[in-house]
Each structure stands twice: as structure tokens, then as C-alpha cells.
């Protein structure tokens, strides 16, 4: 799964790069494009090694803070804690996702058609901007999720 993601991102990176080379970038790059370039560069950088840096760093954060409830395979705990596999919350709006990590979550929430009613503690006092960004980039490239690249500045803005 991860490998296919990396291939897709690398292809994307090549596409973007070739666009730039043919002088097709008269107008300023949009925020979206910047982010895509960032993730592509980040993934490309480490194409020679096993995984991009954020994958390892993000996984460390996940194992330390999230795994206890969401579990090693991301499947959660039935009836208690929702899965993070193929999650709309992870692949969806970035600001909302950052907000959930920083402020936590409480009360009924429906994930993949199932209602959960637990508490996720806020992480704003536990994780710094880099750690949140690494975690989210890891999650968006794991467990069948996807989504735009998250930068530490995006997290800082939401604090």
C-alpha cells in the first residue's frame, strides 16, 4: 500500500516538475500546488531510502500517543474507539483534522456508519507542531488514507 502511494506521489512529482520545466508556471503556484510540491519533494528526497522522514517520525508519534486506543493495525476497539482505517476524518478537511488532534473529541461520532461515544483527549499540550504534522502525514499515507501534505505552519495557525 505504502509503496503504491510512494509511486503515485513520485509520478505526481515528476508531472509537476515537468510542468515547471516547460515554462508553464507563469502564474503563482496556488497553495494546493505548493503543498503537493512539498509532499512530492519530501517523498522524492527519501525515494532512495526506505520511507520519507515523516513516515518514521509520524509512526513514532502514533505508537506513543494513538496506538493504545486506535491499535497497531488502526482498527480501533469495537464499540469504544473508532478505526483510523480509510477514515473520512483523516482524508477529509485538513483544518478539521488538525483541530481534532489539538482539541480532542468528545461525545457521539459516527465513523463508517457506526456510532462511537468516547473521549479523545486533546493533544495540544502533548505534541508540538512538527509532531502533529508528522503524525497526520503518516496517517494520510497509511491505513488506506490519503490527503494533502500538512506542514508544521498549518498546525501553528490552528493553535
Amino acid at each position, binding site marked *: 500500500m505504502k509503496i503504491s502511494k510512494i509511486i503515485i506521489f513520485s509520478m505526481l512529482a515528476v508531472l509537476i516538475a515537468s510542468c515547471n520545466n516547460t515554462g508553464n508556471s507563469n502564474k503563482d503556484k496556488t497553495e494546493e500546488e505548493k503543498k503537493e510540491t512539498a509532499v512530492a519533494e519530501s517523498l522524492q528526497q527519501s525515494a532512495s531510502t526506505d520511507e520519507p522522514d515523516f513516515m518514521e517520525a509520524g509512526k513514532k508519534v502514533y505508537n506513543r500517543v494513538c496506538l493504545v486506543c486506535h491499535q497497531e493495525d488502526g482498527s480501533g476497539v469495537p464499540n469504544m*474507539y473508532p478505526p483510523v482505517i480509510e477514515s473520512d476524518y483523516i482524508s477529509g478537511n485538513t483544518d478539521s483534522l488538525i483541530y481534532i488532534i489539538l482539541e480532542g473529541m468528545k461525545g457521539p461520532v459516527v465513523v463508517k456508519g457506526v456510532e462511537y461515544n468516547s473521549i479523545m483527549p486533546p493533544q495540544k499540550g502533548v505534541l508540538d507542531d512538527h509532531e502533529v504534522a508528522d503524525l497526520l502525514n503518516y496517517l494520510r499515507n497509511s491505513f488506506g488514507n490519503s490527503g494533502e501534505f500538512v506542514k508544521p505552519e498549518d498546525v501553528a495557525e490552528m493553535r
Partner: protein
Amino acid sequence: MVRITEKIIMSLLITMSVFLTQCNPKDNDSENRLTPDEDNGGIKLPGGFKALVVADDIGRGRHIDVNDNGDIYMALRRLENGKGIAALRDTTGDGRADIVRYFGEYPGTGMEIYNGYLYFGGDTMVLRYKLSPGQLVPDNEPEIVVSGFPDQNQHRDKPFAIDNAGNIYVNVGAPSNACMEQTRTMGSPGMYPCPQLERQAGIWKFSVDSINQTQVDDGYRYASGIRNSIALTWSDVTDNLYVVMHGRDQLSQFYPDLYTEEQNAELPAEEFLLVKEGSVFSWPYYYYDQIKGKMVLAPEYGGDGDKTEGPVEVEDPVMGFPGHLAPNDIMFYDGVQFPERYRNGAFICFHGSWNRAPLEQEGFFVAFVPFSGELPSGEWEIFADDFAGKEVVRSPSQAEHRPMGIAMGTDGSLYVCDSQKGKIWRIIYEDK
């Protein structure tokens, strides 16, 4: 034309339902001999014991009870066909349910038949349905036995036990892991005194025959310091309440300097409690360390993993099971079908852990504890195993089945239900 076909179908349905309701349950005590499944329904049992699958895929089971006529009632964690209780009947005498019906508006956990009523413990109240002889699904509205419990996200199940003197004992779980100022947050200290003990983290006693009671007006705090008791029962032999408590989570996650992940996987004990009126148990100030065999001060209250001195006096458990195994139902065996050594001993359903991660998850079995009088007379042992269907379980979702509820039929068979898919096993002893 359409209307007419509809009418015909409707009347056919009505006729069919009349026929169905006339199907009587067959109690297999009689001449009918049960044929166990060759693989015992996928579970592993001690020699001489066999099992057959009563039903499968009927919804995520919680607690279960069996009526005198063999009808089975199982509370559901989630609504199934919009209903919260499954009712099952075997009309052919082979022990397998051929009628499954659903009723009840709420999902829940508690389930016990008492004095012609089916008592049901939902998340916010205890209800009861009047059972009519021979009728599988009650046709009346339920009565509210108790309501008015605090709103809570964590540990909100309201399972219960009923004694022989007209009392019902209801679990009101703690709304937190360890009464920290900020729930499940690293570095947050424990509150002292823990305000959650006032109306939660204990067992409240009510009248089993009165309706519309509330916790504040009619409840009596029978015992305190119990984090959450999904497994609770009244022992008719010794006339006592017994609870197997869910111990706290996340020792190494919040206190990595004091606990290793290995220690967190084993600690603290799931405490087996003999509950007397006015008993005060460990939560939240202490936990029981079953390896050291002593009560230890909780790290949120200044504990260091070994220190025992703390703010209040609390009672020890009668036994400590390994951590996080999630004891979710308990029953004292007072039947005659099983061999002598099982009489008056306790069967306990362990739902299986989630808080042993990153180590592999454990539990997913039914344990047996031999008893003599009020106390265990020997070590606990695994009675029924292999519910998970695999050697290594890394997360609870990977378990194929998780034993959740246990009950005894009139013939002394043991019924165990599962919370993953809704499978029910009937365990019998064959004397040969």
C-alpha cells in the same frame, strides 16, 4: 390491483405469524438428545465437555439469560433491525434456535429474567418487560425500574444483579480512567477527594419490584471504589454480591518513567471482589498488583509503582486476574449437569484486552474459579478457549469472537454469547 395483492400478502403474513407464535419451545431435557458440533463450534473445552452452536450472526451480544422454557434473551450493543434485544427459540428440540426475533427500543448490556419479568440494563436506565407464559416476544411496553443516572461517555453500561430479597444492584461506572483532572491526559493529576465517587464508581441498590425509581431519590450506595463492573452477580449460596472489576488503563502511557510497556500489559489486576454492604474498594486511589500481591498507590496520587500508603483504607480483592482482560460477565454454577468440582464455582467471561498494546492482546476466554464458601478454593483456570480463532491477536478487531455473556439453562447447560458477530454456544457435559 396492487392494493389487493398487498392485502393478500398482509393476511398471509398475519396467518404465518399466528402459526409462528403457536410454535412451542421444545425443552431438550426430555428424550431429545443434543448433538454437539464436531468442532464444538470452534471453541476448546476440557475433556468431557462439548458445545453446539445455538445461533450465529444475530448481532453484537452483551448479557444473556435463558428462561425456564428454554427461550433465550440477549441484550445487544447496537440496534439490530432497529431493536436492542434478541429473543431466540428452539422449536425442534435440537438445541439450535430456529426462531430469532428482535424487540426493545434501546441497545444495552444487562439481561436477567426474574419473577416473570425480563430486566434489561440500558446505558441510562434499567427497564423490565412482563413475560407472558409461552410468548417469546413481550407485547407490552417496558416499565422503567430505575432512571436518572448521570450522563457519561465512559463506562455508561448499567448491568445489574438481583438478590433473593427483592433488591437489584446496579453498576454505575466511573466516568473516567483514573479520576484525573483532565480525563486520559498525560501529566494530569488525580483529584482528591475524587468527586466521581459521589454518584458513580460504585454499586447502587434499588427495589427490584418498584418502578420509576431514580438514583438520587431511591438509590442506596451499596459499595464504592469500583471503577466499572460489567461482571456482577448475586451468589445464592453465600448470599453475597460478587463483582469482577475492570481495572484502570494506560499506566505506561501516562507514566513511562515508572512503568514499562511489559508492566503495563500485565498491570493492574482485574480485581475479583466480594462485595459487602458499605465495602470500599481500590479505585481511583490505588490498584491491586497481582504480581506483588498487594494494593499499590496509583501514580496519579503520588504512587511510584510500589508505595502502598495512601489517603483511605480500602479492601483487597479475593483474587487478581491479569490486567486488561476485561471480565464482562460472571455466574456461579448451581446446576447439576457438570461434574462436582464445578458446583458453586464461578464462571467468568473475559472479553479480551485492548490496552496490552503494543504487546499482543490476551483474554478472549471463559475462566473457572473453584469456590468453597465465600472464597475461591483454588487458582483460576481457563475453561473455554479459542474464541478469538487465532493464536496471536494484535488488536481486538482481529478476534473472530469475543466471549461477552454467560448464563445457565434449566438443564445445567452453559450458554456463552459473543460480541463480535453474535454467536451463541451451548456447552454441555457428556458423561462418557
